[in-house]
């Protein structure tokens, strides 16, 4: 499609459909957008010769990439530095175990069982090593655990787990030249300076309608992202760490975060997730369903097996330890970012990409369903009242 506005209308129309689906079925917009992207590409591919959704159009690639970077920044900015300082030892150990288990386990399964190449297998390990902070946090909130020491430790551990994923993605596939050293050196300086510079800069020039804060943050994210890509790394690596180091300052600015969210959800992430979905090949998934089964099983087992004994060493109760299994959920954001990185850089094929994204979605959905079933109050699973509670039906006489 050469007409930019028609193409834009198609993509925003798909985003609208995805949002409606998310509202109707109470699922996350990200999940809905991935699925809508996949289905849309399937339909267009089936009905039009060489039909494409335009996923490789430069301006769509730019918007999608910006979506991934800003989303990653916002995810990092949600870290609570005080909680992390208080629980850093447990969080670091559990987070690293939660990362290395599936990272090594899935890499091994991809290489030795599925016979993927070494780089493809590492990429599979990275994509499936992530955890879902949101799934864990949602369950914590439901149970009121978010204010307990246990809850705070597990949340902080999730950030460490995801940090491991982002660093692995940023450095494993990097060529390690002088450029890498320059990138690492500049990054360290920027990460140290930012928490001091940013609040002072905002205090002096911020709070105006010209949205200086948003421009400043985008400048930083694009600048560091550009440096990362120049060095052969990935733009989301500095974005996540910038989010974390600014969590105590920018992350507390509720108004600014809300404005960034509006920009992100309203324009950027639909392009990112629909684009990620459009590269998924349904025929490839149908042709080799056991690949999905193998990756899914590898992900689950390699999370749970090392995490349980680790949690026990911190003397948590068995029931509490069960909640750590929620960490086996794969985060949609980092899971798809890693897979898309692999596809864009020719590390994995489209079929491998399709299996990885399917596993990312499966490992995000299935643990949520298990969590819902396991952690329902017991009276929901087995009614203790033989007779239903007395019911009174009242018909209101209100005019409407």
């Amino acid at each position, binding site marked *: 499609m050469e007409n930019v506005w028609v193409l834009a209308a198609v993509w925003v129309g798909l985003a609208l459909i995805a949002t409606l689906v*998310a509202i*109707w*079925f*109470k*699922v*996350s*917009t*990200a*999940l809905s957008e991935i699925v809508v992207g996949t289905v849309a590409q399937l339909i267009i591919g089936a009905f039009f010769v060489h039909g494409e959704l335009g996923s490789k159009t430069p301006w769509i690639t730019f918007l999608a990439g910006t979506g991934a970077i800003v*989303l990653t920044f*916002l*995810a990092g900015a*949600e870290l609570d530095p005080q909680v992390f300082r208080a629980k850093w030892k447990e969080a670091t150990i559990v987070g690293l175990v939660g990362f290395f288990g599936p990272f090594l386990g899935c890499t091994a399964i991809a290489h030795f069982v599925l016979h993927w190449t070494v780089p493809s297998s590492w990429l599979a390990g990275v994509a499936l090593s992530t955890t*879902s*902070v*949101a*799934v864990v*946090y*949602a369950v914590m*909130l*439901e149970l009121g655990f978010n204010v307990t020491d246990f809850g705070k430790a597990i949340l902080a551990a999730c950030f460490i787990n995801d940090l491991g994923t982002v660093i692995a993605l940023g450095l494993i596939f990097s060529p390690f030249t002088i450029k890498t050293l320059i990138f690492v050196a500049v990054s360290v300086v920027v990460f140290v300076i930012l928490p001091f510079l940013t609040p002072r800069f905002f205090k002096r020039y911020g709070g105006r309608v010209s949205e200086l804060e948003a421009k400043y943050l985008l400048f930083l994210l694009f600048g560091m992202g550009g440096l990362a890509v120049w060095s052969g790394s990935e733009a989301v690596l500095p974005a996540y760490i910038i989010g974390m180091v600014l969590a105590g300052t920018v992350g507390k600015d*509720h108004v600014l975060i*809300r404005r960034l*969210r509006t920009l*992100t*959800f309203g324009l950027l992430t639909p392009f990112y997730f629909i684009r990620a979905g459009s590269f998924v090949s349904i025929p490839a998934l149908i042709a080799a369903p056991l690949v999905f089964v193998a990756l899914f099983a590898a992900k689950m087992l390699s999370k749970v097996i090392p995490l349980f004994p680790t949690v026990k060493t911190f003397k948590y109760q068995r029931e509490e330890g069960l909640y750590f299994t929620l960490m086996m*959920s794969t*985060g*949609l*954001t980092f899971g798809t970012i890693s897979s898309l990185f692999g596809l864009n850089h020719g590390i994995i094929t489209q079929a491998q990409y399709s299996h990885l994204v399917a596993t990312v979605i499966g490992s*995000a*959905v299935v*643990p*949520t369903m298990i969590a*819902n079933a396991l952690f*329902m*109050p017991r*009276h*929901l699973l087995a*009614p203790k*009242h033989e007779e*239903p*509670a*007395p*019911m*009174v*039906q*009242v*018909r*209101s006489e*209100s005019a*409407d």
Partner: protein
Amino acid sequence: MTGRRHNPHFRKILVGYDGSPQSDKAVDVALSLGECVDSTVLVFAVARPPEPSTSVELEAVLDDAREHFEEGFKKIMERARGHELSVTTDMAVGHPAQQIIHRAEKDGIDLIVLGRRGRSQIARMMLGSVSERVLRYAHCPVMVVH
């Protein structure tokens, strides 16, 4: 207090609130009933996160829910001024039926009042009816306001 009767069965009433006109009707019924039988009324809202969420979307949903319910709670408290009874408000996160049942048990609620949304068959099949689940599993009487 004229016209008020102390009723030992309904000392505490929980009314589910989601901002819909149906839940507003349920709140009105609960306030009137609470005043009649000298009960305390807890107006209880539940924010339901999308599943599986991304962390940024979850925070956004919770922020919106807090604002939405706080605005609704303010209006309810203004309406409650016309009634002679103690009204409190609170919000939880999770599945609405699960959270309502849990809170009712925890607080020793004597009566749960809910509005009926009248969702389509498909929506009920996919999401389940909150009132039907509460009706099935609650430890106390449940009043559903049409």
